[in-house]
């Protein structure tokens, strides 16, 4: 079987068409129902893991302080990590952009004359669209995580960072396997489907020249790469092929091994409602002399891709606390309505809305930052207490303010509209002045019958707004 094709969607504007994509899902009762059911399931599983609100709160506080501690020392920790990895025999590469990361990875592949790469689940590899780059270079890239395998077969992208194929029904997957996997008849028996996937992948692990994985935590003091997974495919990718390449964002570092257990506990409980994942891999070196297995070469690619922009700003830096559990999307009423693909970004949901602007610029993403009612459900469940609503408000300010000379972000002012800014200035002019407010609100109630019956988007599903005949201040005056 050849590696399936990935879609060619390298450079595009997620904001463009966001509302249309969202509407397609919202107008589809089947999808609405399906996302609702899936998110309810995940929320229930998480809640069952945290029966004690006080324990949860103290663990979240610990998670937050560990992440903030490590981010504060990030430049030093990166140096320490590199030194210890190199000492352990792991080769370290630095990539500022997705293109650079792809070049590094494909360079290693070419050096080994690799034909096939098997991949464990890695959102950073999605971020750089590695499959697409590998394919263009004539190297097969095969996803081995079951969910990733399914979306790759379908020529799609993950719709959720933890459960990539959550948008697909059992029947759709059954049909996909029947259509795309050689010699397979239609079955919607889940165990049978998993077995089909395993049989295909098992062979590929042995054939592959390169194994690629992500990293959940990189420990600076020991030079250890930690990988959390459930299917065992991550362990296969990092041990069976002769070369292992790990890729991660520069923010995934912790100084000490003792920082890992609380974060791991928060991660698995928040993500899938598991007390602990089935596998937890700690990779500290390539195969040593006398060892019988393991890759002979291990590489780590550290990717920036906009992270240092977020890092440079005290408030925006909190974005980098994320441990990629996906709880924010599971609890998001917007994600629940529209699913992950509508966002058009690698990372969907609340975390996607606050991290993607750093990766893609505000020009491409300013439309996404308005897609939140700021209900706060994401911030409430975030295991490391990222103040997501606060960051969304900041990003709105960055997107809609007039472009200026010292922007904190690429694309600052991309959503600027002279008219809208003037409307808000006018609003402030009225509401900062009691006299003007009294006048305009009096006019509003006096001429309430002049209120139009069509009030733009508001009246698409609501009756028109109409001021009351008397304001509260009038009623109080009359009462005396």
């Amino acid at each position, binding site marked *: 079987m050849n590696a399936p094709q990935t879609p060619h969607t390298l450079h595009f504007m997620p904001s463009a068409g966001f*509302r249309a994509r*969202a*509407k397609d899902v*919202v107008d589809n009762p089947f999808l609405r129902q399906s996302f609702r059911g899936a998110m309810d399931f995940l929320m229930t599983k998480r809640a069952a893991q945290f029966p004690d609100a006080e324990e949860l709160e103290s663990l979240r506080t610990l998670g937050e302080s560990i992440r903030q501690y490590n981010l504060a020392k990030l430049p030093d920790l990166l140096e320490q990590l590199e030194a210890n990895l190199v000492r352990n025999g792991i080769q370290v590469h630095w990539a500022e952009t997705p293109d650079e990361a792809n070049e590094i990875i494909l360079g290693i592949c070419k050096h080994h004359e690799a034909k096939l790469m098997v991949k464990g689940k890695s959102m950073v590899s999605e971020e750089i669209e590695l499959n697409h780059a590998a394919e263009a270079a004539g190297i097969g890239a095969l996803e081995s995580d079951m969910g990733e395998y399914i979306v790759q077969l379908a020529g799609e992208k993950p719709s959720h960072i933890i459960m990539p194929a959550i948008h697909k029904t059992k029947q759709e997957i059954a049909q996909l396997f029947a259509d795309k996997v050689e010699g397979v008849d239609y079955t919607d028996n889940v165990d049978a489907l998993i077995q089909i996937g395993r049989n295909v992948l098992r062979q590929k692990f042995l054939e592959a020249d390169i194994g690629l994985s992500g990293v959940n935590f990189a420990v600076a003091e020991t030079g250890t790469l930690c990988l959390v997974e459930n299917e065992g495919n991550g362990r296969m990718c990092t041990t069976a092929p002769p070369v292992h390449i790990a890729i991660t964002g520069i923010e995934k570092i912790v100084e000490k091994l003792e920082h890992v257990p609380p974060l791991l506990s928060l991660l698995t409980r928040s993500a899938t409602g598991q007390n602990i994942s089935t596998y937890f891999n700690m990779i500290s070196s390539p195969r040593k002399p006398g060892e019988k297995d393991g890759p002979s070469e291990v590489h780590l690619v550290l990717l920036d891709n906009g992270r240092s922009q977020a890092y440079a700003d005290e408030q925006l830096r909190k974005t980098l606390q994320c441990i990629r559990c996906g709880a924010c999307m599971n609890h998001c*009423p*917007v994600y629940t*309505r*529209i699913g992950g693909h509508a966002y058009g970004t690698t990372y969907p949901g609340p975390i996607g809305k606050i991290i993607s602007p750093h990766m893609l610029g505000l020009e491409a993403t300013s439309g996404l*930052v*308005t*897609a*939140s*009612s*700021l*209900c*706060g*459900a994401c911030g*409430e469940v975030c295991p490391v207490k990222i103040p997501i609503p606060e960051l969304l*408000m900041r*990003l*709105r*300010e*960055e*997107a*809609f*303010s007039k472009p200026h000379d010292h922007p904190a972000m690429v694309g600052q002012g991309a959503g600027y509209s002279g008219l809208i*800014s003037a409307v*808000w*200035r006018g*609003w*402030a002019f*009225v*509401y*900062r*002045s*009691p006299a003007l*407010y009294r006048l305009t*609100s009096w006019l*509003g*109630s006096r001429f309430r019958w002049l209120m139009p019956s069509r009030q*733009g*988007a*508001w*009246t*698409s*599903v*609501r*009756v028109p*707004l*109409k*001021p*009351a005949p*008397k*304001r*509260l*201040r*009038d*009623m*109080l005056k009359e*009462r005396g």
Partner: protein
Amino acid sequence: MISAQTPPPRPSDVYFFATCVVDQFFPGAGMDAITLLERQGIRVHFPEEQTCCGQPAYTSGFPDEARKVAAHQLTLFPNDWPVVVPSGSCAGMMKHHYPTLFANDPVRKAQAEALSGRIYEFTDFLVNVLGYQPQDLGGDCTVVLHTSCSARREMGVHLTGRKLLGDLGHVTVAQQDHESECCGFGGTFSVKQPEISGAMVEDKVKALKATGAERVVSADCGCLMNILGHAAWKDQQEGRAQPTLPGEHIASFLLRRTSK
């Protein structure tokens, strides 16, 4: 624990910050809240100069405009009385966001911080400051309570509305599906992302109606504007003359239940 802070002694006077939405769109709710407070022996002061807390601009990404409007409200409460706000959302803005908004303005920051400690959401004030226990004089009825996201997550006062309704002997409080989920209002979100907001309010109204409750009550008029606005629109679409989901501010409901 219901209270987010240590209750102060029972005051003789309070300021009432009505919010622009109550002043212009739900004045009855404001009147009823004031009446209810007065019945507890409290003198209620309504600063005539009040306008809006500034939240619409703040959440839309226009903090400078929000700051100008907020700076005006800071001048309205010279005496050291509690400020009662019949909205979790506007109370949250004044209590939690004013100090941030004026972070670079030492004088106003100090004023904002001093004010922050005096801001009370209406139901929180009734329960935790006044220890108010309503005497139910009405007949049997079933209502459903919608709590705003700000009241729930920002102010942490989602239990006080429930407590007040629970104290009413003849009122059954129905439990809606996905109770803690946002109604989809979110200020300018409702018009910037009308498809998503519309889907959220549609689901919310369905869940509220499915309880069979005869009305919805809420302590936030922003949510009510959205929820009742959609329910009425749906009634129109389906050609119903009678509202299938009437609703009101919790102050109006409490006042009626406790009046002869």
